[in-house]
């Protein structure tokens, strides 16, 4: 676009490539000037305040927040001003100037975001691939040895097995219960209060939720008063108390319950909105034809919100792949509950092997990749 615009401008006599290069270099220069100027001012003001004010962390945070926002504004304002000075919208070259400025301005607006995203997300993906071919400290080249190690590592296999279990159970359960909750709460007068309460765990951190559920699973030897709700119910029904989170294999499901508990509200809110968006006519037609409420739900409503169900499902799937806090806080991967994200963390902090940890991270990335592609395709459909 910029290319055709600049060449079409009457004053532009350079070739297309040269003009694109000029645009690019000018954009970079203006961006850099704006960034340096605003950051320098912000740092100077920070230093001045830091000198005057007593140091407390919160005050410092507030100062950084205000200065951060001011520096952002400063950058956008100053770079914009600079651009207008270089290509003034007046004088003999006005048309050429405006086209040139318009080719550069979007990049000024995008600049900070591109820099931050580049450093924090794009660079790490590339760097992780490189690191996965290196040894523990990331210096010695080891070829594919990390991958070979991974392939025969029993703990890795256990993590993959558990991750697959999580991937099957959690999205399915959360979406299904969410759908039921959405359908039911839409029919009653106190539905909104019920929704709020089911949605609430979404605000609770995974660690907080782990504490909450660990209390539910608390175990005391038989004969003592059980203070964990689950064991109290089990003994109340005449069973034997169990240390739930140490029961092999099944303990995975007790951890999954925590995430299902957190995510059901999310599924419910989205699906409830989708259910309300269904055209009334289709339902009325079904009622006239004598369909039962169950038939209406499963044969008329659910098929119409299928795409939203897919979105909810994939969103929760992505979350499940990254699940880490719950396992770390409740079992730390003991008793056969290891998952990939926690295993990666283990190698990073306790194993201190950045090569192996990066390799595990890449496995997670590969598992997310299909969803990523699907997401991009869906988004492009929506944008066109």
């Amino acid at each position, binding site marked *: *676009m*910029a290319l055709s615009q600049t060449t079409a401008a009457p004053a532009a006599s350079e070739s297309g490539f040269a003009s694109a290069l000029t645009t690019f270099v000018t954009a970079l220069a203006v961006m850099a000037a704006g960034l340096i100027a605003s950051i320098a001012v912000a740092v100077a003001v920070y230093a001045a305040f830091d000198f005057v004010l007593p140091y407390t*962390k*919160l005050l410092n945070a507030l100062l*950084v927040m205000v200065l*951060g926002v001011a520096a*952002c504004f400063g950058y956008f304002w100053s770079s*914009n001003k600079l651009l207008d000075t270089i290509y003034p919208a007046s004088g003999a070259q006005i048309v050429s100037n405006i086209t040139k400025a318009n080719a550069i*301005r979007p990049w000024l*607006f*995008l600049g*900070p*975001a591109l820099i*931050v*995203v580049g*450093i*924090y997300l794009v*660079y*790490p*993906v590339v760097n992780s691939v490189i690191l996965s071919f290196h040894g523990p400290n990331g210096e010695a080249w080891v070829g594919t040895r990390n991958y070979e190690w991974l392939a025969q590592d029993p703990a890795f296999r256990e993590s993959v097995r558990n991750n697959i279990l999580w991937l099957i159970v959690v999205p399915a359960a959360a979406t299904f219960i969410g759908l039921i909750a959405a359908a*039911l*709460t839409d*029919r009653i007068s106190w*539905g909104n209060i019920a929704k709020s309460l089911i949605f*609430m*765990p979404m*605000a*609770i*951190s*995974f*660690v907080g939720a782990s504490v*909450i559920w660990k*209390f539910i699973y608390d175990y005391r030897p038989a004969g003592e*008063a059980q*203070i964990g*709700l689950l064991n*109290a119910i089990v003994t109340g029904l005449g069973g034997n108390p169990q240390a739930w989170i140490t029961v092999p294999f099944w303990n995975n499901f007790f951890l999954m319950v925590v995430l299902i*508990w957190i995510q059901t509200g999310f599924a419910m*809110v*989205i699906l409830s*909105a989708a259910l309300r968006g269904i055209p009334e006519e289709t339902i009325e037609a079904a009622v006239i034809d004598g369909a039962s409420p169950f038939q*209406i739900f499963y044969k008329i409503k659910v098929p119409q919100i299928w795409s939203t169900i897919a979105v909810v499902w994939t969103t929760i799937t992505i979350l499940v792949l*990254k699940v*880490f*806090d719950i396992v770390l*806080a*409740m079992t730390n991967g003991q008793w056969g509950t290891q998952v990939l*994200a926690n295993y990666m963390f283990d190698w*990073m*902090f306790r194993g201190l092997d*950045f090569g192996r940890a990066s390799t*595990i*991270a890449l496995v*997670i990335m590969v598992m*997310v990749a299909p969803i990523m592609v699907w*997401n*991009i395709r*869906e*988004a492009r459909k*929506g944008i066109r």
Partner: protein
Amino acid sequence: MSTVVGARPALTWAVHIAVFVLVAIWTIPTLGILISSFRDKDQIVTSGWWTALAPAERNLVVRAAAPDDAIEENGRWVLRGNVFGEISGSVSAFGVSIQRPTEFSAGDTAETRDGELITIGENGDYAISYPERPEGARGQRLFVTSQEPPKFTTDNYETVLFSEGIGQSFINTLTVTIPATVIPILIAAYAAYALAWMEFPGRALLLATIVGLIVVPLQMALIPLLRLYNDIGVGKSFIGIWLAHTGFGLPLAIYLLRNYIAGLPREILESARVDGASDFEIFRKIILPLSFPALASFAIFQFLWVWNDLLVATVFLGNNEQQLVMTGRLRELLGSRGGNWEILSASAFVAIVVPIIVFFALQRYLVRGLLAGSVKGG
């Protein structure tokens, strides 16, 4: 819809009951922690929180005072005292042997084989009378079953806030969260405006990249960034984590805001352009105020996400008093104080109370953001 169900009262009842059960399952776990956090620490471990309002039954084994201290009264040697220490209650039964700890009820007199007469009153006062002068420093063992009134206290909160370091962690979390929520918003808003309303080559590709980056697992970013931070000397600092959260939050922020800003009516922007407003002015005077709902949605997301984050904080902040955030502290307490539910429950509640308040106060914006993020675009 209601007419369909309205025709069948039995079904309506079933719906009410089903929703009630769901709500109960979803709220009871949190309620358990909340109630426990206000209970006395001895009662937490001896009875379930659901019995918090009922008097708690407690079994005590007490040693009476040393027989040497007995005083002569009317020809017998008598020892007096009280079975209760700090926690009072009312005695319902007592015994003198471990086989039959509830043999006698309060006020009765038990006679041992040695001819000692033992009586314990309801208020816990005991009297042991010996036929002859007793000797020895080991007191008689008394088995007491007492009923204690339910006890609620804010001691647990005082403990966690001031001596378990939760108070300091609360401030640390706040320090991380405020800038990490505000800084990405402006950066994202400008980028979103450019992606929505400005023409430039590679726009579609850029947008697709942003959407793809939303799902990049954080695990990928940790090691490269940790190394980068160490190389350039940022180390473990608040500025490092603010920028990290900004970077991780940006793709979603740009995507949410772009969808919203692209949906603003074209006429407003066109007429502003005709009036001679530059892009910069349009953004500041028209786009920013109009996008308030979307900005608020993202702000809530980012706030909840940063406040509740454990992974990024563990990697980019230190483990010391000055930097440990609340989620990290809670995890540490789970390890070191695994059985101390009075500390865990109060700490957990301090950690979740702020997000819950934000959640209930601003739920409307949160729901709107969720819908914009997944139904429209995703």
